[in-house]
């Protein structure tokens, strides 16, 4: 009896001693399907790393951005791993807010990361964030409606074809809109789509000397084309539609085409939620023959803030969550179709993944078609495809987005929206010291 008590006592003491040595890291993230899945699979990580405990903070995207910015700028040290996008990585890395990821392990195989994505997360040759999932944008369209319109979607269509098809597919009586596009104001909402689209029309936010370019004909062509197309073939109230609203419309069979994030492919092709799951096909984002397509590039990535005291444990976690083994783990537990897309070249070479995800090739082609270092037809002093990687862009992008959303809603003309955008951009860039 005494021996049993002694053994139990020793076990408890060693468990307590072990718990005291376990390091706890806090991970800030957004509430996306892939992130939730990762939280469910963390037992695999803790089994391999029993000395590290994980704590999760899940927040709405904008609140997360604000919380993380406050914490990182004040060196609050509340987070050890944070989920950030390709917009933040170059800016924050240059500010010295992020630690370079130099201890991801010998087996990590960083060369396997898709080059376009890796390029967006690298500053001065150092990787500052590891992609958890990557995306571009492409066209999702209804094969049946396209056939009914007497058209065949090419793999790489032009805007002219897309506009023509959208008008032909529109059937207001049947509540079918030829095309659904983002209209909700915000730098990550309508301006993500419109900036990427403007690249394909030859427009740019700034010239080589940071002078705003909204007074140039390329922007007029972009915005006028978008407003006219949405008036003829878009859904009503489109100025309130973002990703989720258009997703719901498409899933309910109310859109002939939808140009948005490649990650949406798994949603629209899921028969559980989408009544058109078996009628969807994909094509590259359109162009106008100028050499740039209207697709973007984004990656939700994991980074380590400079204020953390647990950098080694944080990097161990990032290495696990963005590794090839993690993709295999998701495939084993939840099937290949649920593997986080857009990060590793090897995934797209995997026949099982190609079979489970019919949109895989088009996703990879779309990602490869975007070049964040040379996003526009004419030269620019900035990087970023659907954003301009400068701190001022969040505020400026949203203000311009509000003007363009108002133009879409018919509250102001295209010319007025562009004139005001030019004026606001000039003021902000002067205030920021980019121009005199």
């Amino acid at each position, binding site marked *: 009896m005494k021996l049993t008590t002694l053994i139990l006592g020793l076990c408890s003491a060693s468990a307590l001693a072990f718990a005291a040595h376990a390091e706890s890291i806090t991970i800030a993230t957004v509430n996306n399907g892939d992130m939730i899945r990762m939280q469910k699979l963390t037992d695999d990580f803790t089994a391999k790393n029993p000395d590290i405990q994980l704590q999760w903070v899940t927040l*709405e995207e904008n609140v997360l951005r604000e919380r993380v910015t*406050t914490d990182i*700028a004040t060196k609050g040290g509340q987070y050890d791993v944070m989920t950030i996008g390709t917009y933040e990585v170059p800016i924050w890395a240059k500010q010295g807010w992020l630690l370079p990821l130099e201890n991801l392990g010998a087996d990590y195989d960083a060369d396997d990361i898709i080059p376009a994505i890796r390029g967006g997360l690298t500053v001065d040759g150092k990787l500052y964030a590891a992609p958890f999932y990557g995306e571009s944008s492409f066209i999702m369209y209804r094969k049946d409606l396209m056939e009914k319109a007497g058209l065949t979607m090419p793999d790489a269509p032009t805007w002219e074809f897309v506009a023509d098809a959208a008008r032909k597919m529109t059937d207001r009586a049947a509540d079918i809109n030829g095309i659904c596009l983002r209209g909700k104001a915000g730098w990550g909402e309508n301006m993500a789509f419109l900036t990427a689209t403007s690249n394909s029309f030859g427009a740019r936010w700034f010239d080589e000397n940071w002078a705003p370019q909204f007074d140039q004909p390329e922007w007029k062509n972009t915005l006028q084309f978008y407003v006219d197309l949405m008036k003829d073939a878009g859904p009503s109230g489109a100025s309130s539609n973002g990703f989720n609203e258009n997703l719901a419309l498409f899933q309910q069979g109310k859109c002939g085409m939808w140009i948005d994030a490649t990650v949406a492919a798994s949603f629209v092709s899921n028969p559980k939620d989408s009544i058109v799951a078996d009628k969807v096909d994909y094509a590259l984002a359109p162009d106008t023959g100028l050499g740039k397509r209207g697709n973007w590039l984004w990656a939700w990535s994991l980074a380590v803030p400079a204020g953390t005291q647990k950098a080694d444990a944080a990097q161990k976690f990032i290495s696990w969550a963005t590794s090839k083994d993690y993709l295999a783990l998701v495939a084993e537990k939840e099937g290949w179709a649920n593997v986080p897309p857009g990060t590793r070249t090897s995934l797209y070479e995997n026949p099982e993944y190609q079979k489970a995800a019919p949109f895989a090739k088009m996703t990879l082609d779309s990602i490869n078609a975007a070049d964040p270092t040379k996003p526009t037809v004419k030269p620019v002093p900035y990087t970023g495809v659907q954003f301009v990687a400068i701190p001022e862009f969040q505020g400026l992008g949203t203000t311009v987005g509000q003007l363009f959303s108002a133009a879409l809603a018919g509250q102001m003309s295209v010319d007025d929206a562009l004139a005001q955008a030019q004026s606001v951009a000039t003021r902000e860039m002067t205030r920021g010291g980019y121009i005199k």
Partner: protein
Amino acid sequence: MARAVSTRRKAAFTAAAWLVAFVIFFPILYTILTSFKTEPEAIAGFSLFPSWTAENYVEVQTQRDYFKPFMNSVVISVGSTLLALLVAIPAAWSMAFSPTKRTKDILMWMLSTKMMPAVAVLVPIYLIFRDTGLLDTRIGLTVMLTLINLPIVVWMLYTYFREIPGEILEASRMDGASLLNEIVYVLTPMAIPGIASTMLLNIILAWNEAFWTIRLTTTNAAPLTAFIASFSSPQGLFWAKLSAASTLAIAPILIMGWFSQRQLVRGLTFGAVK
């Protein structure tokens, strides 16, 4: 005839009261209804007829732990209310029964702090919390919410105390009561309905406070406001799950409000000695 008109007027007022109550309650009702819809139904447009699925509640329970943020909400809202009362009762006594020529100015100044946008002091407060180790602690949030709601608590108690005749307190003083005894044994028992309604209102305000509770916490002290915020998704439908999380978060305070509504209304509408 006069009686008929009066009944008709009474019916009209009753109908108007019901209408106003319905309009005020409608967002909560719609949140509850949405929580029983499927995700596509929730975003499809206005509908009062859900398919009565409970899958959102199951999903919310599986995704996140409800109990920990719930306990944090209870501790923070009750703690901050008690702390605020501890400071506000003597302060309101002083202003109500021993006013100076600056009392009105002080009251107005206290109220004016409520008009300041919270985000304006976010960084200084964050730095203070960081340096004092109060980030993500229940104590830190309790202190913060006490300070935020203190002006309202002082104002409510001041208004309430002013209706208590000063002579009663004078009489207790003449009987030899000390200042502490006067506040604890004479003033407080007379003001119980007012203190109770102030307390209830303050608990509701603290329970619903979202700006600071989300920004000053991460995992240990995060209350139900952070629990709700975690269900918003940039890519993927979430309205039904968010509504289920909101319903779970407001349920305790809704039940508390329901049972204490008589005291709440009485305290807010009647004076102490009426």
